[in-house]
């Protein structure tokens, strides 16, 4: 079997907020094989970005820290190394080289005062020791690879001269420059129009298949997960509540939160029947709890239609429901 590129065990990440320590991510296990796309999905504040920042070593200093766990990463050297406790300098060597990232807002990664071509060339000069001319030529090729028309001219332009969709393509080109083993994409299409989102998802899937990279794809959109991912981890209040292959989890969800979430997504052409019948749209009652005030036991209990007294005793373990499918629900056999 292929050894995983990323293997997170028992991760716990905490933040210091107003003299208190809040746990943003807890008990998190996640592994990604070469060529595999794993989606982390959940509503806002569920801990998706904190998980990806923990892997990249980009937690806000002094405020956020990894409190527990290991993050084994197998980069270009082929040997697995624990990213937890690695020096900031060692992490900097890996970022943009062995692992790369794409964010929701392309201007997070792009510098407005350098040309697009210079920015794509830079990681190749730093990490791969390419000459200026070599890197510049490779940058133009990368722009072509991500589907930007007239790449030589675009390479000479500044980010503000590109549309939002093209800027996101350019950040993808920059992320791919050093042929990373792992691409972390945090809501890379959330700020884009839906027809442009379709283009970018298509592009990411194609590039990933060509290069055999592992991809951690963070999104709040279940439709996007169905489209791009092989496996999915659903997060709620800092914990993975359900995980498995996309087919398994979407066709046979074994956690009440996943079920509720799937039912809440509007399906094209299906609301008319509900409207005619005078039936409201399916929802999940209540709202996500605040981390400062998590309920005891299962964090979903106050909103869960299946909740019983036993649910509030302890945080349910992630139970193996078979075939690599897991559910953090004590009543999963009945769900």
């Amino acid at each position: 079997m292929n050894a995983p590129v990323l293997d997170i065990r028992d991760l716990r990440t905490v933040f210091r907020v107003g003299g208190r320590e809040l746990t943003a991510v807890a008990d998190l296990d996640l592994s990604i094989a070469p060529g595999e796309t794993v989606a982390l999905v959940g509503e806002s504040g569920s801990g998706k970005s904190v998980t990806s920042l923990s892997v990249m070593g980009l937690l806000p200093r002094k405020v956020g820290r990894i409190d527990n766990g290991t993050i084994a990463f197998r980069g270009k050297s082929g040997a697995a190394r624990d990213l937890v406790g690695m020096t900031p300098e060692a992490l900097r060597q890996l970022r943009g080289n062995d692992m790369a990232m794409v964010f929701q807002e392309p201007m997070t990664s792009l510098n407005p005062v350098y040309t697009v071509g210079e920015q794509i060339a830079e990681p190749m000069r730093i990490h791969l020791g390419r000459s200026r001319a070599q890197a510049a030529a490779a940058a133009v090729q990368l722009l072509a690879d991500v589907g930007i028309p007239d790449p030589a001219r675009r390479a000479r332009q500044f980010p503000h001269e590109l549309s939002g969709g093209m800027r996101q393509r350019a950040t993808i080109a920059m992320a791919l420059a050093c042929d990373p083993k792992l691409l972390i994409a945090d809501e890379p299409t959330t700020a884009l129009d839906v027809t442009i989102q379709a283009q970018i998802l298509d592009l990411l899937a194609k590039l990933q298949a060509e290069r055999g990279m592992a991809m951690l794809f963070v999104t709040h959109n279940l439709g996007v997960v169905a489209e791009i991912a092989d496996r999915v981890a659903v997060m709620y209040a800092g914990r993975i509540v359900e995980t498995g292959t996309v087919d398994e989890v979407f066709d046979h969800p074994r956690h009440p939160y996943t079920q509720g979430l799937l039912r809440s997504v509007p399906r094209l052409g299906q609301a008319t029947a509900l409207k005619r019948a005078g039936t409201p749209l399916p929802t999940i009652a209540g709202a996500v709890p605040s981390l400062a005030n998590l309920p005891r036991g299962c964090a979903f209990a106050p909103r869960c239609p299946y909740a019983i007294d036993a649910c509030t005793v302890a945080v349910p373990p992630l139970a193996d429901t078979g075939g690599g499918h897991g559910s953090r629900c004590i009543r999963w056999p009945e769900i």
Partner: protein
Amino acid sequence: MTEQPFLSVSNLTKHFGGSGFSRAPVVRAVEDVSFDVPRGKVVGLVGESGSGKTTIGRSVLRLIDPTSGTVRLDGVDLTAMSARDLRRQRAKMQYIFQDPFASLSPRMTIGQILMEGLGIQGTGTRRDREDRARAALKAVELPADAFDRYAHEFSGGQRQRIGIARALALEPQLIVADEPVSALDVSIQAQIVNLLRDLQTRLGLTMLFISHDLAVVEYICDTVIVLYLGRIMEIAPAAELYANPRHPYTRALLSAIPEPVPGRASRRQILTGDIPSPSNPPSGCVFRTRCPHAIDACAQVVPPLEAVGRDHRSACIRNHELETAEAVPA
């Protein structure tokens, strides 16, 4: 036979910039848009960013002045109205914003926020205003103690309820809701859509519901208008638009929406290219640079909105040829 529409928008056009000393090119935000909204009905305005949705919504309430065209509310031409007369009309028309965070003052209690609008309108005594504000809170299903709390104490969905309560307290007849659920999580979006639908039917409100997401508007809208680069591409009863989309852009938009069904992606149609700039829109059909069916003739004339079915119109010169074309993958 038919009653006059409650809201009637005719040949609405709005251009930004391009005059005076500014050298920035004219932005053609809205071009020649006409539609009616019967009393008590909901019309959806849907399109990608920059398609002119907000500009139409703001022009309807005359929060901005259109370049040309008219907006009639209950037979009264708002576009010709003096500022003073307009103020009197304003109570009848309320705007609900996308961002519940930015639109609520952090220093006022929810009660003060709700009563503020009523005070500006000079409605009744303080006691009356408080009663109406409390009734509005109840209508949006917030607890009574919310009256004395501050906006920051509420979640995104609750803040959107407050925004809706603020609009309702004024007992408007027309509501323009501009992406009221776009900033919310999916499980909360459906709660707010249900609430708006319930209030709308109970109170007989007339509503313009703006969204960039075709999937969100189906439940609440009676009629849906699809916009692209400031122009109407298609207009149809909601059920009809999803069952039988006719314009190539509507079909592409429906096909682009990712649905939580594994395996569907392979059947999707992907448009090439970017959305053109509204300061330099293509000649003829504005969609032609991305349309898979474009022919030379598409660059020649702006396609008129033609009837393609009952209350169903589409602005494409190839409407009839493409009738049988592969519709949206299921």
